[in-house]
């Protein structure tokens, strides 16, 4: 394997968060962004073709090694721990925030029809959701959005990578 690819592979491997092209550029001083991206593409394809236990994936604006999705039960057996668990209520709340951000808590509650205080706290603690600032309307309510960790957790490259929202036809007139 050529040296550049080997270096990039090692760097992605040791990082505990997805590594961005910008970080790689900063480390590999004389290498162009294009060369880095193309080495990453090569690596991703090689792991894909090989079909082993690990894969290189593009997530949250960076690159990260992850286990294959068919191997979940084996990994959980090794870890001997319960998988990360998001309740349906947390998932619904997260969906509203992800698609509607920046969004106020009152708006989330209007859509879901329930109080979301406890759930919001949980999502903030898990760092899937963040306070983005305040809305410039009377009372200046706090607005929320999703985090980089959200993208990482759901394996999304960017927010635009979210599946399209299937809106239901509204009433006529």
């Amino acid at each position, binding site marked *: 394997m050529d040296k550049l690819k080997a270096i990039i592979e090692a760097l992605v491997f040791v990082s505990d968060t997805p590594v961005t092209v910008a970080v790689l550029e900063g480390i590999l001083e004389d290498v162009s962004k294009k060369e880095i991206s193309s080495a990453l593409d090569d690596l991703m394809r090689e792991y894909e073709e090989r079909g082993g236990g690990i894969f290189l994936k593009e997530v949250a604006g960076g690159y990260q090694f992850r*286990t294959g999705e068919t191997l979940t039960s084996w990994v959980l057996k090794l870890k001997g721990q319960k998988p990360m668990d998001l309740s349906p209520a947390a998932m619904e709340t997260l969906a509203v925030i992800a698609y509607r951000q920046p969004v106020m808590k009152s708006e989330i509650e209007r859509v879901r*029809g329930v109080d979301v205080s406890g759930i919001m706290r949980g999502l903030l603690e898990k760092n899937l959701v963040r306070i983005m600032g305040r809305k410039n309307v009377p009372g*200046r309510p706090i607005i929320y959005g999703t985090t980089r960790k959200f993208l*990482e957790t759901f394996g999304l490259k960017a927010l635009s990578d979210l599946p399209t929202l299937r809106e239901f036809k*509204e*009433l006529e007139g």
Partner: protein
Amino acid sequence: MTDRAYEIKLDIFEGPLDLLLYLIRKNEVDIYDIPIALITKQYMEYINVMKALNLDLAGEYLVLAATLTHIKSRMLLPPTEDEEEEEEADPREELVRQLLEYKTFKEAALGLDRMDILGRDVFSRDHTFEEIEGNGQPLREIGIFELVEAFRRVSFQTGQHDIMEIDVEKISLSDRINDIVDELEKRGELTFTDLLGETDSRRRLIYTFLAILELMKLRIIKAYQAVPYGAIRIRLAGE
């Protein structure tokens, strides 16, 4: 808090809208033309069972019960003349809109749930925590939530709950104070009019004035005036 009784019992429904969607699906009726009497009856039955089981029912379930009853009674009433003239509005309209919106996000949530979630379906390497010290390193992006949590922790530890009392006004004043000090560090000297002149909002004007007073009181800035009624100049007090 997640340990409220109704949440334990009602965890099959994520709220009143979810229960309503369930009833619509169960009865195989058209969401755009809900048979309101039937659905209201069944909804009330669910509510009554929950009450009979002595469950602490979330207020939202009762609010929707009231809404349903209201819609039902409006549909029984003959339309008033006014309504007949300007094409009578369907009393169910708002509820249907709400249900459709909720349904959209409920499905979006299922979509999220089907993704390969890190820590549930796929895994990255476990990293033992390494602490590297040094000041050349960039700081991690931190959420405000962590900062507020830290502030709350402090007040719990010391039992000084008075420090919790911080309002928007106080923070806005700090903002203005910071802006003024920033400006002075950059430009060395400012006049009163420099600071007040650009201000068009009354709110901002008041905060600017209060900030100047506070800074003078703390002797962080000094004000000079060459001649009576001349321009007031402000500088950082320095050492």
